[in-house]
């Protein structure tokens, strides 16, 4: 997996490089490590919930710290850095420039992540990944919660710098012969993602500063005792993190636009609708944040507005799905591992999207609020759609990065186990939520139905965990001993497929 050249460079030269493929690789490796660290926490959480009562943890405190770090790690150290890494790797190739616009800024953006990891994991905060006040300002234990706040500030800054770099690279460093409307859809996805990051993140950064000063007792923005409003934090938070949902999903959609036409051996069904949908969601995504807060006592008018705005985001997501289906329709589809993961992601995207549409209906939202329904819903998106696509894309890029082929059979076994596991965990969690099981609680009532469904979910989670162990074994072993890949057509799609990336670009030119 370590980047190779005609003449091998020492490792430290790769680690401290400013070349886009090197930094992209560092991003990808870091995010894969984070995926496994966060996954380990998830396994512990599911082991605890296998039986009612308290077995694995000493109590709710440790459980809170585990699910907080699970959420934070998966969202900020897996989903975002992986997208940034793939973007780094491919965007300069796609827009035909020698590197990112500002290579050193790119390296700085990456190197803000390791200190954040140390802050996050050294502290192991227990605020929940949302860090709602009043708990986060009045009660959350000191070093850990403050470390969490500072780590998130750094990570936000890191994504901002990365996003600025992407926007400038795509818009300004694009080859003059390449019009904007001929650019690959992955570049469009990274462009709209980056623009969303630039608009969304500063709000959360401001909220984090307010949290810090509130915790010190200097200010009382969110401290009701000092005349502040805890719900104001939720508005600031979700103004960043509802768009963040689209920031997570858009790179995945861009990757699907790479995978689906390739393995369907057909041109894309509709390029323009893809561009329109990507740009549209980047705008509409900012109008629906308060649907996370229907239970905080908003007026009926506000709730209706945000419900309608949420529904307005549906068509642009559906445009992507129809685009994928239209591309696959009538194609000679080759179900290699990336395509398997991609098509599973489309299916689960539909399932999680449908759950979200139902959930935004006011009457249901009050029933499902803070229940396992919500957990099942967003995990189905983040694991079922985003992580499945990312996994598929790791397989897709594997020949480009290593020059070798992964073990095809093991990849397919990985897919089957992971797919069944994901469905077992997260669909069951929807039903658990409808039975009224609250999220973030270490224990549940020893009712047969709850116990059974939790056990199904835990078994599914262990299947996913086991399949990903097979995955890491496969990519580690294959990158050392795998069969050398044909750099033009590593997936043996045959003639007439002009697609794979410029292999020689892995070599830094400066």
């Amino acid at each position, binding site marked *: 997996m*370590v980047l190779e050249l005609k003449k091998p460079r020492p490792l430290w030269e790769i*680690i401290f490089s400013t070349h886009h493929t090197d930094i992209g690789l560092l991003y990808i490796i870091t995010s894969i*490590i984070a995926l496994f660290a966060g996954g380990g926490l998830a396994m512990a959480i599911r082991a605890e919930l296998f039986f009612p009562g308290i077995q694995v943890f000493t109590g709710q405190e440790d459980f809170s710290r585990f699910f907080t770090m699970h959420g934070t790690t998966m969202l900020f150290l897996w989903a975002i850095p992986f997208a940034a890494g793939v973007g780094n790797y491919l965007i300069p190739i796609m827009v035909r420039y020698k590197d990112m616009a500002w290579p050193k800024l790119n390296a700085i953006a990456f190197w803000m992540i390791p200190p954040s990891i140390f802050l996050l994991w*050294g502290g192991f905060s227990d605020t929940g990944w949302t860090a709602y006040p009043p708990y986060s300002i009045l009660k959350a234990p*000191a*070093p850990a919660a403050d470390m969490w706040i500072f780590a998130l500030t750094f990570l936000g800054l890191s994504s901002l710098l990365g996003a600025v770099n992407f926007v400038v690279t795509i818009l300004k460093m694009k080859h003059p012969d390449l019009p904007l409307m001929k650019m690959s859809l992955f570049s469009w996805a990274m462009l709209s993602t980056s623009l969303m990051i630039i608009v969304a993140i500063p709000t959360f950064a401001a909220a984090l500063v307010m949290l810090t000063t509130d*915790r010190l007792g200097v200010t009382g923005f969110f401290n009701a005792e000092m005349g502040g409003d805890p719900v104001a934090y939720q508005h600031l938070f979700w103004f960043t993190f509802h768009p963040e949902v689209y920031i997570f999903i858009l790179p995945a959609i861009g990757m699907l636009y790479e995978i689906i036409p390739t393995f369907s051996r057909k041109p894309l069904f509709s390029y323009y609708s893809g561009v329109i949908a990507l740009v549209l969601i980047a705008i509409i995504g900012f109008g629906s944040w308060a649907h996370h807060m229907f239970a905080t006592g908003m007026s009926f008018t506000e709730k209706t507005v945000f419900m309608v705005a949420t529904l307005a985001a549906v068509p642009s997501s559906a445009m992507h799905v129809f685009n994928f289906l239209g591309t696959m329709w009538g194609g000679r589809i080759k179900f290699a591992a990336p395509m398997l993961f991609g098509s599973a992601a489309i299916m689960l995207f539909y399932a999680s999207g449908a759950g979200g549409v139902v959930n935004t209906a006011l009457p249901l939202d009050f029933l499902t609020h803070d229940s396992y329904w919500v957990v099942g819903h967003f995990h189905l998106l983040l694991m079922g759609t985003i992580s499945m696509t990312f996994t598929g894309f790791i397989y897709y890029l594997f020949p480009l990065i*290593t020059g070798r082929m992964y073990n095809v059979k093991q990849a397919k076994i990985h897919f089957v186990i992971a797919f069944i596991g994901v469905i077992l965990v997260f669909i069951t969690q929807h039903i658990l939520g409808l039975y009224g099981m609250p999220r973030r609680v270490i224990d549940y009532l020893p009712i047969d139905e709850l116990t059974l469904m939790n056990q199904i979910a835990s078994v599914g989670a262990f299947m996913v965990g086991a399949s990903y162990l097979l995955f890491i074994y496969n990519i580690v072993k294959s990158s050392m001993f795998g069969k050398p890949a044909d750099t033009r057509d590593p997936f043996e799609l045959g003639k007439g497929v002009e697609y794979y990336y*410029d*292999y020689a670009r892995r070599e830094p030119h400066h």
Partner: protein
Amino acid sequence: MTTHDENHIIRTSPGRFLKGFAIVFITMGVLGYITIAYWDYSASYPPPVSSPPPAPPVEEATEGAASTTAPATTATGPTITIPAGAATPGNPAYAPPELSVKKGEAVTVVNNDNAPHTATSGNGPEDAGQAFDTSLIMAGASATIDTSAIEAGEYPYFCTVHPFMKGTLTVTA
């Protein structure tokens, strides 16, 4: 597009890979050690906003001097103060926590906190109020415990609203 590389560039040897693994695992080991060794330390202090305010002067209260204590009242005689922030577990609950008075003296309980409190004799709800009970003292208000009807002895008391607030009142004959 530049030309494809005709020769496969595959030099990822196990040795190089081991070096990469070493970097990753040593870093993770250091981080894991920090996390586990400081597991309790890293989540053990309440945030500054809820940490205890400076303790009020207690000497005057124990001596029963009527000079500068208890801003909310003009009580003379022994005084128990409930300092600001007492409703948070871990903060001082009653000042002084142990007070000794002569039988017959009236003890004034001043609530300087912003939440209502009580001073109720007993160790908990099961034996609450058998000797004395101030009932609810609103924020800023005060109440009086008449010790003339109480036999000499040591009486633990607590707050029925916040049972973690505990103190002791000793009545001497």
